[in-house]
């Protein structure tokens, strides 16, 4: 068995350990109200089991990382699969550090599913080791990517704690305008998370069914001399094409539920690599996510926020607020170093300019400005509790857009790690 095969096994082990750890955290939190037990003892006991499990998961994940590194001869952060799974690992590291500081068991109930989703999302992408193109082959790339991801991981933990805070304090029985608005947006946040889950489910379901479709797309490209030429590209779909690529012809189309041609064509202004396919994926995620959401609503017969809210009882909201803020405050310098300073050093070495207003660079700057606004709002304007938690939640959306959305929608230097 080669090192790379071994590392793939370690990855699967990590994934399942994370899933179990998540379940144990849920038991630790929800099981407090079960009969014939002392809630405090129960929480302590199961919290410990859950933490040990999640730490074992992290150990397996680290094993994956280092054996893949050894096996491929390059640090596994160079494509979307490797990067996203690294991000998942970084979130676990950040969670472990924050846990060590605050010892709040329930944080795991939110950090773990986040990791599980991101690790599952990572496995959507092709898992082969790809050789690096020369522009990427530098020590600074490794340092830049890993440090930036670690900073973002702390923002992720800040997001998890912020969302917990909101689930804890929002009044889900309230009928006031303010309460209704909070309920809506909390529900919307949960729905958005389900969309990502929906995406993963859709991809794996159709992959298991072996679905594929193919299009030939004609594209005009303008080269460095300004000469326009037309190239033909084959675009492969693994999800039934609701949207076909702009300016394309069907090569192969398996009928799905009676649908045997694409419903519409991707708009011309979507510039990213394979943007038609990506738009199709987004639409499928919305469909699958909405189905999932509808199903959960049918099972519980009330908004998901109201389902989770009672579990949060007994947690001090001030602690959650502080944890959210503290994670972001810990992550901010790391993010600055990794996503801006190391990135500038690397850009200066690789392209001879430390800053080029490439979309990915701009979005890293936007993320940084956003979190510096967050810190100033908190320190100088006294934005705490709800306001601060909402900012932490929105901030993570910006982080995700920087990591994934930019590659999805905008073309630029970083599109080599395209979806």
């Amino acid at each position, binding site marked *: 068995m080669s090192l790379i095969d071994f590392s793939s096994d370690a990855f699967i082990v990590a994934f399942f350990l994370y899933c179990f750890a998540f379940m144990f955290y849920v038991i630790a939190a929800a099981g407090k109200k079960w009969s014939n037990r002392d809630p405090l003892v129960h929480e302590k006991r199961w919290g410990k089991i859950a933490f040990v499990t999640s730490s074992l998961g992290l150990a397996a994940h680290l094993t994956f990382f280092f054996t893949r590194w050894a096996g491929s001869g390059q640090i596994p952060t160079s494509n979307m699969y490797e990067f996203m799974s690294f991000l998942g690992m970084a979130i676990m590291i950040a969670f472990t550090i924050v846990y060590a500081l605050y010892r709040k068991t329930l944080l795991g109930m939110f950090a773990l599913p986040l990791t599980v989703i991101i690790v599952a999302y990572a496995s959507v992408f092709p898992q082969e080791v790809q050789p690096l193109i*020369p522009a990427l082959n530098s020590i600074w790339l490794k340092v830049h990517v890993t440090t930036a991801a670690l900073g973002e991981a702390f923002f992720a933990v800040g997001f998890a704690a912020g969302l917990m805070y909101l689930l804890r304090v929002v009044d889900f029985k309230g009928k006031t305008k303010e309460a209704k608005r909070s309920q809506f947006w909390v529900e919307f946040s949960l729905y958005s998370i389900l969309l990502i889950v929906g995406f993963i489910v859709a991809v794996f379901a159709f992959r298991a069914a072996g679905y594929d479709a193919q299009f030939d797309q004609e594209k005009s490209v303008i080269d*460095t001399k300004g000469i326009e030429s037309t190239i033909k590209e084959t675009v492969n779909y693994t999800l039934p094409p609701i949207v076909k690529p702009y300016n394309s012809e069907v090569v192969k189309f398996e009928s799905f539920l009676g649908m045997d041609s694409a419903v519409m064509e991707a708009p011309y202004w979507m510039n990213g690599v394979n943007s038609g396919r990506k738009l199709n994926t987004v639409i499928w995620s919305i469909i699958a996510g909405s189905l999932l959401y509808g199903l959960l609503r049918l099972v519980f017969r009330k908004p998901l926020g109201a389902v989770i809210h009672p579990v949060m009882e007994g947690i001090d909201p001030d602690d959650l607020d502080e944890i959210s803020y*503290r994670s972001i405050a810990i992550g901010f310098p790391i993010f600055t*170093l990794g996503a801006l300073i190391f990135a500038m050093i690397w850009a200066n070495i690789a392209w*001879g300019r430390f800053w080029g207003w490439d979309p990915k660079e701009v979005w890293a700057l936007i993320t940084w*400005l956003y979190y510096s606004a967050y810190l*100033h709002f908190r320190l100088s304007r006294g934005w705490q509790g709800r306001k601060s938690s909402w900012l932490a939640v929105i901030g993570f959306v910006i982080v995700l857009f920087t990591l994934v959305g930019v590659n999805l929608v905008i073309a*630029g230097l970083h599109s080599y790690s395209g979806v």
Partner: protein
Amino acid sequence: MSLIENTKCECGHQNAVGTVLCESCGKPLEEQKDTAELPLEMRYDGVARRSQKSNPNVIDRVWNFFSSVKIAIYLIVLTFLTAMLGTIYPQENTFVGNFDPAVYYEETYGLTGKIYYMLGLTHTYESWWFIGLLVMIGTSLVICSLDRVLPLYRALSKQQIRKHLQFILRQKTVFKHTIEGDTGHWAEQFGAQLKRKGYRVHRDGTALLAEKNRFSRWGPYINHIGLILFLLAILARSIPGFQMDTYVSVPDGDTVQIPDTNYYVKSEKFTVEFYKDEELPDKLKGTARAKLYETKAVLYECVSGCGDPTAKPELREVTRHDIVVNDPLKYKGLKLYQFDFDLTPRLNAVHPVLVDKKTGNVYGPFDLPMRDSAMQHKLGPFTLDLYANYMEFAIGDNGEPTTLSRDPVAPAFIFSVKGPGLDPAGEPYMYFPMQKDKVKFAQDTINKGIADKIEIRVDGMDNVDFSEASTHLNVRMDRALPYVWVGAVFSMIGLLMGSYWQHRRIWLRIDGSELSLGAHTNKNWYGMRADVAGALKKVGIAVDPKSLDNGGNNA
């Protein structure tokens, strides 16, 4: 604001206008009734900021505007919102070569593209309003910091140990207790515990002040100094001569001037190496994935005849380097980076012969470069006068010959030939060095009669000079760079100081046997409470850390 406010504290200290807490004893000054029970606002230790003056003049008003953190936050938010707009479509500077933004955006993106261009968003980051925002952020950084750091420094460097009871009991972390036994001994014991936790302990009878990590308060200001340096460095780059960023394309063997400089660069050889199939995963097999590309470059400096277009410049070699990605040629701040390449071969020169078809005699070969050929070639009894020379020959719309570009893609020569059997005034002869063009443009048909008398042809590939590839180099120069790094280092040090350490202070006083303890930190109340509870436990008082919380904000 013209009224003179009475800002004298009951302890006798005269405070400046705008002071929230007495600079000496800490007693809250002039407050509304409804906040009288809440924890105190401890920001900047309650001292008056520079901007809080009673009679502001114009300069004070500008100062006041920029000294507001609220304004600073608005500026930050505005900056990132506008920065977002700039990423909707590619910016103008991502296009190399001749391209007309006015046409491009409308053609590619339709009406929205046109509006985008007209709003100036196609060069967002060079626009006056974006740079204006950066300048304003810089100003705000300077003024906000100065406004706060000086008063804060004064307040922290002359702290009084015995604080007003209200000051202590209205901290966010508060503890009250009745002490049995010797209060002096208790205070000493408690102080010793705090010392073990790394606090500096000052005592004044039964009053105590313990403080740790004061330096972390300077973190934000050091960070801001770094950011100011960084911004200044960036703004300095718009000064001419500070920064350059251009591209040169150099075919193998050519020497090309670097625009706006006295330097010339020669590419002796460009090589590209691709990954072999066995090195690639299945999906990428058969694709040309570049592994390494390299330009053997030589840099020359022009020593004479430089500005004169008619004279040939005299060049002196200054340095040579094999440029690969991540390893540029560097010379006196000038850097040449590998940017791209073009593997289309380019014809440089041919060495053709002239054949007299009547006699079968062969004259030559002679040297015929594609550019700057000699105007006349003498070959035996024949004389060739160069009449015209095209780089990419084509017949224009008007039926006249024309050239489509300045690169020798389809070169053509028109000679006026004199010699035996030819018109003494000279007969025109059209010559296409490339076989494909000879066929395409039907050379023999164009030349008519003269094609039966003479022929110009190349014998074998030895007589053809061509470049296999062209290398595209990116030329950069940036004198602001050292300042950028210094700024980044300052900023990072400041951030670390401010984020990973917290300034913690504990005040206590014992009045009779009543202990009043208050504690303050600028971050991490959880840790602050743990410190107090830990020290109390060591002296025999067990408290739940959470119970010390007095409510209020926990910034």
